[in-house]
């Protein structure tokens, strides 16, 4: 009897769910159809002001100059995500995996230098073509993931303060530039047009390094434990 009740309830809830979802779909469709077909957008204003942004790629101009505040907060989100993973515990035991096969052993030696070069290229080309800090950082992060898969573990001396400095460098550089600009009497992240290109490259370089190392550290899946690494190296 109870089982029958249960199945009846689940059937009813399914129909209610279907009804609600249909209502949602109709509402969304109506909202989309109501949109004016010619939204003005901000593309023209970006194109008008591109001269003052210091870069010629509109996407980089928006991300690092006109809406630099958003990117600053994104760097913060990435750092907070890593802190969340670190607070859950130290590196799992499986990091100390058996040595990889010959292919995985050789592949990083060939690919990692190329990946670092590609990351540098994407960072540089972001000023006037598709590319930029996040793409370059993720390529750098991929190089780190490849190294970790091949059984490489970070050196004990690098795990403490140096790692933390690099992780915070992107947000720190962004914040420092913003603060210095405020002290000089401008708004937060309102670059002087003459220096904008240099400042953007400076911020992007620090951000690329931070993003790459953060993503690799996320893949590591825990706070690097100095003691455990030291024990491992002493074996």
């Amino acid at each position, binding site marked *: 009897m109870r089982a029958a009740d249960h199945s009846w309830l689940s059937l009813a809830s399914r129909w209610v769910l279907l009804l609600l979802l249909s209502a949602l779909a109709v509402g969304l469709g109506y909202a989309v159809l109501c949109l004016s077909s010619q939204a003005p957008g901000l593309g023209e204003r970006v194109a008008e002001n591109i001269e003052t942004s210091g870069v010629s790629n509109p*996407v980089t101009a928006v991300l690092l100059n006109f809406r630099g505040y958003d990117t600053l907060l994104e760097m913060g989100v990435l750092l907070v995500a890593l802190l969340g993973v670190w607070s859950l515990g130290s590196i*799992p*035991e*499986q990091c100390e995996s058996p040595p990889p096969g010959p292919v995985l052993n050789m592949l990083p030696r060939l690919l990692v230098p190329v990946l670092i070069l590609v990351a540098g290229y*994407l960072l540089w080309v972001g000023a006037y073509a*598709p*590319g*930029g800090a*996040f*793409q370059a950082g*993720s*390529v750098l*992060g*991929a190089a780190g*993931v490849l190294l970790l898969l091949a059984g490489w573990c970070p050196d004990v001396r690098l795990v403490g303060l140096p790692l933390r400095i690099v992780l915070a460098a992107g947000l720190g550089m962004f914040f420092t530039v913003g603060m210095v600009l405020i002290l000089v009497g401008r708004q937060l992240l309102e670059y002087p047009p003459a220096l904008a290109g240099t400042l953007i490259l400076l911020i992007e370089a620090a951000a690329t390094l931070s993003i790459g190392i953060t*993503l690799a550290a*996320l*893949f590591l*899946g825990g706070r690097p434990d100095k003691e455990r690494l030291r024990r491992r190296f002493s074996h």
Partner: protein
Amino acid sequence: MVLQWGFDGMLVLALLWLAWRALRSPDLFTAIVLFIAFGLVMALAWVRLQAPDVALAEAAIGAGLTGALLLAALARLNDLDDRINDDQPMGTEKK
């Protein structure tokens, strides 16, 4: 023109099919591989929409690194399951 419409239509169908399979797959490993494939096809769709910046980010972060992170999380989940099963004393298995 017809060729482009055909290609775009195939992209849309492939995206919907991959998304559906990834959601419905009972095996987590299959679901992750389907998710990575979804990210790569999505990057192609961004290129077709003339957004190469988003395509780059989608391929590198959406498909590559998220896939690697999901696979690492799955490996840790499996490890955890194994350890829980190993740690179980013999007596508790009767229950």
